[in-house]
């Protein structure tokens, strides 16, 4: 039975592959800037924002999608590790319509969780922008995002502030104690 079906398939073996079109269309022409974004000294627990500009150079409006992509190790910059979690990246919109011959900005936010283990790290992740298309060939453009976190966490700096206040209170206490002791001393 299976053989018959296969035979029928082979005899029938006529099928249209790839949306038939006799127009050899050019792809959606667009650009992304900046091509490289470098964020330095980002303390764990804080966030940084920047804008990606998508320039639709086509004569028609198009929808563009934005998504993070983890590049393979050999494509990352020297000393750059894999970005630990894509959920730390967010976009003002993951899909945006850009009018013909126009630009649109997408705000990207990088938020690092407040944990000591993320301090002093150098990561790389790519932000891919693609135009929605049903053509056989499509183009995706990546912006390289290089993120370096601060060596010190915010909590360390708070420790300094607390120490300063405690020392101040102790000194004020001592001063007050000696002042009142001298006042109650009989002349």
């Amino acid at each position, binding site marked *: 039975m299976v053989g018959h079906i296969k035979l029928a398939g082979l005899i029938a073996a006529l099928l249209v592959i790839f949306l038939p079109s006799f127009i050899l269309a050019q792809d959606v022409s667009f650009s*992304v800037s900046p091509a*490289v974004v470098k964020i330095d000294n980002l303390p764990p627990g804080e966030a940084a924002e920047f804008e990606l500009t998508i320039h639709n150079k086509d004569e028609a409006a198009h929808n563009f999608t934005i998504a993070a992509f983890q590049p393979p190790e050999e494509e990352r910059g020297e000393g750059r590790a894999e970005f630990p979690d894509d959920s730390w990246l967010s976009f003002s919109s993951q899909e945006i319509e850009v009018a013909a011959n126009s630009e649109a900005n997408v705000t990207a936010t990088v938020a690092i969780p407040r944990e000591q283990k993320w301090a002093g790290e150098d990561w790389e992740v790519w932000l*891919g922008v693609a135009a929605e298309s049903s053509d056989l*060939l499509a183009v995706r453009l990546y912006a390289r995002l290089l993120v370096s976190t601060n060596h010190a966490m915010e909590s360390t700096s708070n420790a*300094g502030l607390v120490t300063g206040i405690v020392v101040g209170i102790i000194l004020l206490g001592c001063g007050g104690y000696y002042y009142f002791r001298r006042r109650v001393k009989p002349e």
Partner: protein
Amino acid sequence: MKAVVTSIVVAIILVLIFSLPALAQESGTITITMTGVNEISISLDKTQWPLGNVASNTEYETSPPIEWCTLTVEGNCNVNTFIVGEDATWVDDPGAYKWTLSSDGTNGDHIYGLWFRISGDNTRGPHSDGYVPITKTQDEFWPYSGGSGSSLAPGGTKQFGLKLLTPNYFVGSRQMQTQITISAVAA
């Protein structure tokens, strides 16, 4: 009284000594560097390959075979490029029937192969004939590991062609479509 004033002053100084660096750290500068006005963009002069009806277990090449499509670097930065394919799906009901894209360019029942070849590249690929399988994992397009080529500069071009190897067996009379994505990142 003198002691009180002295101790208050000392206390304030000490608090400032400890807390100012701490406060300064809290407002530490997060540097975001957008590398110049770098804009990334590539274009393809063809995006469709209207094949029409195809037979099983048969190879189809674009015409001309290796100079069918031209990739041009349109932005103002050097780029590395990549290629990735996907399963072909039935246009009428994408969830109901598909051809799986093979991981090595070979075919099978409902499994098809896709290859690309860059003009002037005669020795690349598993058969050292210039043809390289397109898989569902993003691979190098140009330049590539082990090759002598370098990143494509603004205005630079690469011509390439495609080859399709249809499945040994497939369900006939169904219109299939797939997409090959060529991507670029700043070198």
